């Protein structure tokens, strides 16, 4: 375990060093994320114009969902996108061989190798929006709520990670998979709104097929201190299940890997 932490530290220092060659990126990314966020808030405000509500969610509560979404987007830019896009490159060039020959879990290496600081503004803005909106919505910051909220956010990150990882791992067969992750990213955009805002059919799809509901709505409910025990348990179960599935899937995919011929 200690070796994994040391490795993680070295991984991230190395990638930060590489990324900081391009310092202007940070400012650009901050402006872009803030712009995106303002746009999303505006769209959301349109729904609430004239005293309407969205799927039974108040304006402030819906902002919490948007905050969670922004946070997840930030994590995607920081960790998921840069790491998992390299799986494709590894398969294409055959350098996956080097990863597989390291005495360290290959899924760990592939998922944690790079750290891109450009998603940090998104994480910051998302966290800020969550705290502000939760306060406005009158959520109580007692330790129990905070603990449960934290747990559900972790569960949602694990689910998001597993979705990405499984999709990226299919590049073992299809190599050019990168467009598919763009599709995933577009589907996940649905997470900007509470899942109850969607018609019943889509709601079922976003709960059982692509678990968008567990990505933003359930953590938001937990943050607002009103999630039911059943949903919390379901969220944890889905998270544990997706992580297990991603590990199983990776081992399965590796059995087919014969590496690009040389």
């Amino acid at each position: 375990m200690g070796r994994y932490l040391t490795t993680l530290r070295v991984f991230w220092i190395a990638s930060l060093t590489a990324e900081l060659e391009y310092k202007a990126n940070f400012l650009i990314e901050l402006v872009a994320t803030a712009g995106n966020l303002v746009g999303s808030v505006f769209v959301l405000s349109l729904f609430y114009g004239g005293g309407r509500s969205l799927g039974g969610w108040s304006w402030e509560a819906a902002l919490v969902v948007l905050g969670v979404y922004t946070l997840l987007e930030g994590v995607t830019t920081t960790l998921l996108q840069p790491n998992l896009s390299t799986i494709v490159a590894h398969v294409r060039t055959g350098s996956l061989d080097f990863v597989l020959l390291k005495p360290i879990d290959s899924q760990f290496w592939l998922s944690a190798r790079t750290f891109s600081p450009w998603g940090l503004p998104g994480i910051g803005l998302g966290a800020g929006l969550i705290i502000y909106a939760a306060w406005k919505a009158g959520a109580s910051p007692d330790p129990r709520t905070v603990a449960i909220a934290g747990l559900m956010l972790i569960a949602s990150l694990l689910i998001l990670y597993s979705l990405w990882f499984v999709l990226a791992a299919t590049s073992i067969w299809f190599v050019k998979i990168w467009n598919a992750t763009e599709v995933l990213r577009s589907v996940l955009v649905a997470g900007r709104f509470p899942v109850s805002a969607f018609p019943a059919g889509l709601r079922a799809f976003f709960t059982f097929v692509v678990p968008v509901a567990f990505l933003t709505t359930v953590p938001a409910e937990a943050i607002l201190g009103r999630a039911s025990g059943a949903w919390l348990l379901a969220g944890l179960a889905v998270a544990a299940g997706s992580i297990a599935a991603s590990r199983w899937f990776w081992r399965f995919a590796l059995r087919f890997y014969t590496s690009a011929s040389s």
Partner: protein
Amino acid sequence: MAIVRAQGLGKTYRVADKQPGLAGTLRHFLNRRERTIKAVQDVSFAIEPGEFVGFLGANGAGKTTTLKMLTGLIHPTSGTVEVAGAIPHRREADFLGRITLVMGQKQQLIWDLPPLDSLRVNAAVYGIPEAESRRRIAELADMLELGDELRRPVRKLSLGQRMKAELLAALLHRPAVLFLDEPTLGLDVNAQARVRSFLADYNRRFGATVLLTSHYMADITALCPRVLLIHEGQLFYDGTLEMLTQRLAPCREVRLELHQPLGAEAFAGYGEVEAIEGRQVRLLIPRERLTEQVGRLLADLAVVDLSVSDPPIEDIIGRLFRQGALA
């Protein structure tokens, strides 16, 4: 006790059998045909600790497939492999810490960063303490004649410098078994020679076992007392380079220095003329008739000097790979 042991090793691939062009693609889509390719068949050998073994074969002969089975990157279809006391394709951490694979056309160094950063990553992954890793980097850098290059981004290094840095990265964990797949590919003659002397030095200093594939025969002749030759997926030869030459080259080369120049027709009854340059003549004479023919040459012609040698191994192996056939 052998450190590398392969017994009846085999690997078959199923590949799509597809005609070129759109029509072929459509036909393939409707009626998928596959064919089985036997990349490696029934290969057995054992390598003792500290041996330096050359692994020869034409492109597509099965060298890389065998190396991948030995390192555990692919599962054998049949037979067994044991390397450093472990079954490679289980990829146990302990086993992975005792081997390394260097591939001339693939790289593990981080492109945008100096090699030192990649080395730091490797040290962490292999659990090498900081002080120890610094010591090893200094030692290997010294052997490889690498200095400032370790602090320059990899993308700014020459191919030769990059290969040396790759070797350093691959050897930082002090592996007991080295699998080297074309480590001198594309390097100029000087860089090749430096890599070669480093490998010899490393093998001596650390008693490491090395299995080397190379298309440059100079690598093999300089480094490998023993060679394995694989042809069409099967092990064709396992032994010294010298014996291989005898087996593959049925002729020996006889060099003559004559008293005065003679035309090619004068040698018709003795052997195949390779070259005539003034008074210098090179002939190829079948081994079994060598003594007899040399005797006749000395008796019949005014010979000043005569020497017998094997044709250069490059020529023999080169001819073998070009023809793709073995006698």
